[in-house]
């Protein structure tokens, strides 16, 4: 997490320290972290090569 925190330093992204980084694709070495960002913070973070943002959609039981 220290390396991820350093990666996002200065972007304004607020990382969830209790979450990850989680390995989701061992073959390609992809990791996921969770956080919040203003549009400006996000724009700065997305300028970092390999950083991508995705929706965190709420799920519910199918009954």
């Amino acid at each position, binding site marked *: 997490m220290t390396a991820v925190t350093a990666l996002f330093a200065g972007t304004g992204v607020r990382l969830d320290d209790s979450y990850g980084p989680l390995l*989701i694709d061992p073959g390609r070495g992809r990791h996921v972290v969770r956080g919040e960002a203003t549009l400006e913070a996000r724009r700065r973070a997305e300028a970092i090569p390999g950083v991508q943002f995705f929706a965190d959609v709420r799920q519910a039981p199918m009954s």
Partner: protein
Amino acid sequence: MLRRIIVIRSGAVLEAVRVAGLRFDDTYRPVRISGRLGVPNDRPGALGFDYRSAGPASYCVRGECDDEDVIARLLRERRADVVGVYADPEIAAFPEPYCGPGAVGSEADVADRLGVPALRAAGLTGHEVRVAIVDTGIDGRQIPVSGGWSPNRDYRPGSAPPAHGTMVAYDVRIAAPDARILDYALLQSRAETWTALLSDAIAAYADLLQVLERDAGPLVVNNSWGIYDRAQDAPIGSPENYSANPHHPFNQVVGSIVAAGADVFFAAGNCGADCPSRQCGTKDVGPGASIHGANSHPDVLTVAAVTVTDRRLGYSSQGPGGLTRRKPDLAGFSHFRGSGVYPVDTGTSAASPVAAGAAAALRQRVSTTRLRPAQVKGLLQRTARDLEGNGWDFDLGYGVLDAAAALLAIGAP
């Protein structure tokens, strides 16, 4: 008794065509069969009927006999007069989808229709097979659990109140009572409803990847949850989107866990056109609009729902799916009296674990080195009972999961 349609050439005398053991139906008026106009040389081989030999004036009559020998004798001895003999199966209107509130049958009916007696006769109970129930948590007083995970660090696996996750675990055990149940208590209670964020689902799957890394033995993962309303998602086409985006990290990690050897089951959803859940978004009901995200992942088994009387449940979501067009994959039984957690074990939420339990029982016999998850998926699709007689369709996929037929297909250990 065998009932057959017999096509005879024009000019043949019916009494002369008769052979011993064949009874013509005198109440059936012979029906003239005309040759197809304009395509005299076109023989539709796939259908197996030669319209040219039927000629412009052959006749179709109806008869019955007691065994195939009579038909063979008819074809052999009356070759000059008989064009062909064809099956005359009973046909019926497809039943309307079921939308009633009441249970249809019990878990005993589910076990019987699923093929559990055949599994038991082969000694298959899911012994030593892990089944992860990614859900609301399990009441360990009702269902013994062997570990688990939760985003809530204070949660102890098996300590949940009886609710949705307990129902799901119960339904897995209809076919796999000896499976090792893992309690992945993903969905948390908030304001009288159970929900989870996808980021927590990613964490659950990252943990399951580690479980497989430590022990590569069989692991079945059941997911009876999903999104009802895409208004909560980023728009389709946006790089952030989940519902139709294979690059979303949850869709990626689902692919990773299947590649690592897990058999993953997802409920199709409860937004079928006939009686959708009230939670469904206004644009998220019916064909092509009701199976989203990982629930439509190409590597998972997406499970639609039918009653034990083989009626499609009207709330069962319909393909095409968001990630893969050909969804759902097959159907499982639902809407029955089962766990007692609720009056009815309902939704594709119940259909998915019924199917996952059958897979867990079969996994006791076939390791992931013998059959990869994609092969088990193919096996269950190939041996499913096709209800509507039209092959694969967007309502029920390949048909209703048939554990006895799947067992027969994999053969002896």
